[in-house]
């Protein structure tokens, strides 16, 4: 427990002080590599930065099926999920997005995902796949 001095609301911003500099005029865009087309063809080269995956059952199926469409970082950025949640995700890739994955491969891939980023099934875990972002 602590006593803190909490100072708020004691100065109303007038809008005419020096802090009015936070207005429209303050465009702080960094002028780096602006694509202003001196050259009418604007081209970039995308970096790839894909992580390494530990060996384990299902790894080959995972690499073959999943990285066709997206970086494996789609897996490594997730928190640990339950088997049912991972199953929902893999089935979404197969059934909704049309990934070329057999039912047997689904199970192998889920085995691998649970082994590298899984958690036991708790109460209240989402079991329905989400769509979108």
């Amino acid at each position: 427990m602590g006593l803190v001095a909490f100072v708020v609301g004691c100065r109303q911003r007038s809008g005419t002080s020096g802090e009015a500099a936070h207005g429209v005029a303050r465009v702080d865009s960094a002028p780096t590599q602006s694509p202003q087309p001196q050259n009418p063809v604007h081209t970039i080269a995308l970096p790839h930065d894909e992580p390494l995956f530990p060996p384990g059952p299902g790894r080959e199926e995972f690499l073959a099926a999943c990285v066709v469409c997206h970086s494996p970082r789609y897996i490594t950025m997730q928190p640990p999920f339950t088997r049912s949640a991972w199953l929902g995700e893999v089935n979404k890739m197969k059934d909704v997005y049309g990934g070329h994955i057999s039912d047997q491969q689904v199970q192998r891939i889920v085995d691998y995902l649970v082994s590298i980023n899984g958690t036991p099934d708790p109460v209240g875990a989402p079991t329905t796949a989400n769509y979108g972002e």
Partner: protein
Amino acid sequence: MKTRDARHLMNRRGFLQLVGVTGAAALTSSCNRVRSEAGTPLSPPNLSRFPEKAELILLTDRPPQLETPLHYFRQDLTPNEAFFVRWHLEGIPTSVDLRTFRLNVSGHVQQPLQLSVDDLRSQFEPLSIIAVNQCSGNSRSFFEPRIPGGQWKNGAVGNAKWTGVPVRSILDRAQVKSGAVDVSFAGLDAPPLPSVAAFAKALSIDHARDGEVMVAYAMNDQPLPMVNGFPLRLVVPGWYGTYWVKALANITVLPRAFSNFWTDIAYRIPNAPNGTESPQHLATDTVPINRFNVRSIFVRPEPNEIWHPGVPNEIQGVAFDSGHGITRVEVSADGGTTWADARLDAEIGKYSWRRWRANWTPGKRGQYRLMARAANAIGETQSTEQWNRSGFMWNVIERVDVKVE
């Protein structure tokens, strides 16, 4: 590290700005327990530099999803190089020839158009709007239970000055036929498999013609970075980023309601207050995600920033809504027991975020939980609890833990 240097500089500058502040009110506060939670970085974020971009937080590289580090939000306009990036499909455009690129306007119109970027710049009256663009899933990683998807913290958002041509002006030139219902927008990105739906979104004809929805060719007075949608991007002020179609190449006027995967199945929210449902009772009635709800974001302190006892600091953040206007932000330093008004910076546009500040001099060493809640002109405020299956529209009362030592 560059970002760390910038942070220390800002600490010093923030401190100097505060010297001389008077009128301190000492409020008793209890020091809540601090639990480790989503949003508290347990390890340093993985930074990555993409073309035309600064070092950003790497969520995924293919397709790119890049999050803006919080310190960039100390500026009212988010630099183009720091603006967040989110693509759905692997096949994103990496080369555009402005000599051949055309924005195609077709469908239920008398006069289909093929407009070059030069045509848009030279033949139409330009419009500029400062507007927040926020990913539908911004802050997804804070939901409990956790939700699969882009594990954003608070950086899938940015505020920029967008310049372009109102969609209304383009549609007027194309002469929309009577009976138009929706207008769809599609970009240059391509699905990795034929079975994956191409990305496209739609607005109602009235929304598309509201004079504010625009085709932007400039972002903060510069061409857009390729990964932010060069050369053209749809700007839908006050609406979630999913509608802000990047590398916009096709506008199609439809005499019927638009239908595709990205609207009928994806990007939907429960048809309930604030799009909330529970994991045990998923909503069966859903609607397409649409306008922003009200939310705030802490800019200073950052999570687990270290401040010092007896040293005045400025708590700072931004708040925004869908265009009604932020009218009040309250801050708590005692875990939500007592609240006091933050000062609001001048408004710089109804679709812009609005900066807020509060002074705070920590008393004793320890862990503190700061909280912030914003309200808008029509009385909407932030949630006390929220969950939905897709992790959209996060606007729970904001919190940040700061160490005082």
